[in-house]
Each structure stands twice: as C-alpha cells, then as structure tokens.
C-alpha cells in the first residue's frame, strides 16, 4: 500500500502521547479497550489515523480494532462538539421527567437527540443512568452534573452556551 509509509510517519509523530500507555501494557492486544479509552481522552475522538496507529502498535488487523471500537457506545469517530449537553435517561430520571427536558432541548437547539449542531458548537446526547439517581432528573453540561433539572434551568444553561458563542463569533475575524 503506497499510502502506508507517509501515514506511519505521520502517526508516529502525532500520537507520541500514547506511547507511555502502550509501553505500560506491553503492546498487548488484551489492552485494546484501555488503549482506545486513553486515545479518546488524549485526542478527543478516534480518527482513522489514530485507529490505524493503534492497530499497528498492537499488531492487530484494523478491522479488529474498528470492529471493537464501534461496538462500544462511548467511542466516537468524529471530533466532538465544543460543548456537550447530555440528558440522563435512566429509570429514575425518566420517572422524574427526562422526556420533557429532551423535547425542550431538541427544540431549542434545533437538533435531534444524538446529533451535533451543524456549526459544531454543541451536541445533544443522552446517557443510560449516571448512578446519581437521587438527583433526578440529571443533565450533564460539559462534564458538570446538574441535579434536579427543569425545562427552565436547562434552557437557561444552553442559552448561556449560545451567548458565549455569539461573543466568540463577534470577536473572531471572519474568514
């Protein structure tokens, strides 16, 4: 494959931060999920080059690496949005009204659950139980768990994100 050489050079240059983790696991195929978790933490998502790099490092077929990664819900293959809004949809949150929250957010952000807004600014997702059920309904915005949410409080929070976006767009020179 002619593209293999430049890709390999690029990978070894770009994914250096992964090296200590690979060494700690002795490049063992058993550690694939650990390595993928760490890769996503370091680089935000599992891009094609990164997956190829992992496959080569662990001496696994790319199909095996991609097949495993795509099995698990937490791995993503595209860059994440700048901000994430995740509604917990566990039983306790569902009983306490997660559905109206999702509906309101879908309307406000003009996207479906599980999608990312076209401008890449914010994504709307759901999670099956964070185990903080006493705080139901729970919404996680940029990693911060917010308890006892209402339609009013989540809308205020995402509008805050949008206000920030306006500010940033205003200060950026347009290309």
């Amino acid at each position, binding site marked *: 494959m002619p593209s293999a050489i430049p890709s390999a050079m690029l990978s070894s240059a770009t994914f250096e931060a992964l090296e200590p983790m690979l060494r700690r696991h002795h490049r063992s195929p058993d550690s694939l999920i650990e390595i993928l*978790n760490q890769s996503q933490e370091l680089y935000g998502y599992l891009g094609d080059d990164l997956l190829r790099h992992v496959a080569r490092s662990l001496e696994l077929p790319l199909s095996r690496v991609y097949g495993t990664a795509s*099995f698990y819900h937490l791995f993503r293959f595209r860059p994440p949005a700048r901000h994430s809004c995740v509604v917990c949809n566990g039983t*306790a949150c569902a009983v306490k009204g997660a559905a109206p929250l999702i509906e309101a957010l879908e309307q406000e952000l003009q996207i479906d659950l599980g999608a990312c807004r076209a401008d890449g600014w914010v994504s709307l997702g759901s999670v*099956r139980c964070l*185990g903080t059920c006493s*705080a139901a309904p729970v919404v996680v915005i940029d990693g911060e*768990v917010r308890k006892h949410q209402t339609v009013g409080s989540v809308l205020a929070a995402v509008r805050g994100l949008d206000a920030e976006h306006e500010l940033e767009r205003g200060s950026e020179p347009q290309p």
Partner: protein
Amino acid sequence: MTTHSPPPSSVLRVRCCSSAGCLAGGAAELRQALTTAVARRELQERLAITGVGCLGPCSQGPLLAVDPDGALFAGVTAADADGLITALAHRLQAASSAEREAPLAWTPAAGEQVDTERPFFTRQRRIVLEHCGLIDPERIEAAIERGAYEQLRRAVQECTPAEVVETIRRSGLRGRGGAGYPTGLKWATVAKMPGERKVVVCNADEGDPGAFMDRSVLEGDPHRVLEGMAIAAYAVGADRGFIYIRAEYKLAIVNLRRAIEQARRRHLLGAGLFGSPFGFTVELRVGAGAYVCGEETALIHSIEGQRGTPRPRPPYPAEAGVWGLPTLINNVETFANVVPILREGADWFAAIGTEGSKGTKVFCLTGNVRRGGLVEVPMGTSLATIVAEMGEGCPDGAGIKAVQTGGPSGGCVPASLLDTSVDYESLKELGTIMGSGGMVVMDHSTDMVAIAAFFMAFCRDESCGKCVPCRAGTVQLHGLLQKHLGGDATAADLAQLEALCHMVVDTSLCGLGQSAPKPVLSTLRFFRDEYVARLRPQPTAAAAGR
C-alpha cells in the same frame, strides 16, 4: 497516623459526603469552603474536615455529619460553611462539659438537621456499608484503623483455602449481582479446577439504570472490595484479579486506582503476602459503555480487549474464563460481604435474613419517593417497609402505584403486593427479580405501558446483535409497544406482543435477551387494563358489514 492525639472530646470532625450524588449538588465546593474556614481560624489541629463515602439520604444532599455525636445535616451549601465552623469553634472553646455536649446551635440556611431516629436509618442493618460514610476512602490508614486487610492476613496465615471456601458456603451468601447463585458453590467449583493459574474478576459494570450500590461501595470503601477479592483469590488459588468497571463511574475509578496503589505499596496486594507464597495482583479494566458487558461471558471478552458479545455456556467461566483460565466472577457487593463473614463467622451471617436468602441487601431507593438514597436492610424486609416506611412514600401524599426492581431485567410490583418480602424467591414469584438493587418508586401519574416501552427501548439499544431473538425481537417488541402507546394497537397486536415476549425469553442467547421482556410481562400481569384501555376500538359487526 497522629503520634499525640488530644483527648477525643476536644477533637471534632466534619464528615462531608464526597460521593457522586452529593458532588452533583456542590459537595466539593462545600468541603473546600469548610477547609478554608478552618484554616482561617487555625483550627486544623482540633477540627478535621474529611471526605467520606455515601451518607445515605442522597436525595437531600449535599450531606455532612459532625462527630463525635454524628449529627447529620442535609442540604448544606458552601455559604453555610462559615456558620458551621463558627458554631464548632465555639464548642471547642467551651469551658464546661455541659456546653460541649449541648446540641449544636446551627442549622444550614436552606437545609435541615436530619433526624436519624427515622425508619430510614433505624430499619437499616449495615454490613456491606458498615464503614461507608465513616472512613476517608482516600486514606488506606483510615480503612486499616477499622480492620481492613486483617481478615486477609488471618485467612492466609491461619486458614487453608478449603476452610475459607467452607466458611463462605456455610454462610449461605448468594450472588448480589442479580441471579443469586450460591457464592460458596461458585468458589468451590473454581477451587476444584486444575491448573496453576486462575483469575478472579469483580463485576463492577453496574449498568442497570436506577442502581448505584456498587458505585457507592467503590467510592466509599474501596479497600473492602479489594480485600474480599484477595480472600477469594486465596480460596480458589488465583493470582490475578480484574475489576471491570463502567467508564461512567469516574470517581469510583479514581478511588479504586488510588486504593490499589496504596495496598500495593503496603504489600497488602502483590507477591508473597503476609510472608506466605500467596500473591495477588489487581488490575482495573474500564468499560466503554455497553450494558451487555455485565453478562459474564461478554465481560470476559471485554477484559480480553474484544467486542463485548456473550457466548453460549457451558463452558462456564469457572472452567474457561479470561484467556481460557478458570475464572471466578462475583459482583462488588458479593465481595464486600466476604470480610464481615470471615470476621464474625458463617453462623452469624446465616442468622440474618430468611431461609433461602441470607444477610442483607443494599438498595437504591429512587423515583417518586420522599426520602430516597442508599439503604441496607436484612433480607426478608418487606417492600412496604422499604418504600412506605423508610422512604416515607411518594411526595405530596400521592399514592404508590408500583415499585420497579431489577432494572431492565426486572418487573413492576403493584402497590397491592408490597407486603412481599425482599428475598430471591419471593420476588421471582412475582415475575421480577432482586436484581442488583435498584428500586424505583412510581406514583399514580406513571404510565405503565410507557415504562414497559422505556425498558424495551433500553434493551433494543443495548442488544449486542449476536442472536436474532434479541436483536430483532427487541425491535419488534418496542414497535408493538409504541403502537399501544399511540392508540393504534388491536387485540391481535396485544396477543402478538405477549407471544413474542415468551419467544424472546425462551430463545435468546444470554441474560439480556432472556430477561428483556420481563418489564412487559410484569406490567401485562399486573396492569393489563392499561394496555387494554389503549386498544383501538374494534369496528362493530354492523359497521363492518356496511
């Protein structure tokens, strides 16, 4: 450890809940504000602020407790910190013992002092959670002061592996992950397997929505689980251990990593423990969001770095588990029961609970309940006691309609049957399961068909797709339930829904598919009228003939 401890009466301690539930309410800021307030008054020597695991009534968090009297306060915020420290400083300076022992003249601005004489507390019996909320999970010294690793030492130095297995068998302990398989029998099976190398796995992939017992134990008392695993390893002859934990439990992962490192440094884990040839190492394996990985064969595949799909059994993991080695898999709560059983004896444990279900069970009381949180009760306690008495029923005086146990693999128990005792067999008879311990209370506003559809959507999303009945069956079942919800279903659809449920139960490969229809079947059994009421009105014979 302090070398010169002042007399206990002159030292006060504030235990701040640092569990995920309270952290969501601002517990970290509260703890920081308390620490700052103490430092400002230079009271560090006499007023300790420590983080602890779950204190119980999570729904009222953030929580904190003040020692020595153990007064519990709920709804405390960072703004309350200064007032509390002022009140405690006053007590420290008190001249007379009467003043020192008087109740604390302080309550949080928007919170309250929690009455620990309520049934929520008095009905509990804490065995698994005995140190949770008391010790600082970040310090191994705190665990050791309360006897951590002492039973491991005693087992290794004074007992044969067979004696340890026998103690667990006689205790009557059964798996707390849901299925209730006798733990002693499982240990004996793995112990009997030939081979030099065996593996112990702790299943901490607590995926059932509405359940957070394992998270609470791991966050609040991680050494308890590590010691239980090490004792199990000694008993079955294993030298390697894995804890498979879900990635969503960030704090539990941090606390576990730290605990493993601390134990390793103190030679409580590693090679040649307590001067014996026995050695045991533990590694953490973090999942990546797949509910099916709670199933043991799927979990093994995931530990091996593969897709988390289940495989047919036999061979059971006891014969061929991780890398084909004999493998013992137990749940977090099961391992957490091992230390007290060894310490107090099998007979002591067997005296708690019912004929077939021994010991206690930790439940997470959530949903439409006034006092929710983490409770541990003896087996055999009735659902009514837990939900109505301890949980004090639904808020706003609404009546309880049903209690859901066992998550997506369980069912709904109607209010009329709340006298049912909590034990493996009684719950099974009602078409639900003990499960891992989630207990979601539903009031009369809850739509039971919608609840069934909710769980089916969960199973449809989480089906691994390996076997057809589960992959296609959950999709069809969800479609039929949606049809009911939309008022488009006919009597034939209802009959098909029921028939398909039984087919998926009977023919699925693993526990996920086999139990996915349970929420439907149980709501059909107890709330059938809600399904029937939604059926599309049948055209009358006259209308059809026209």
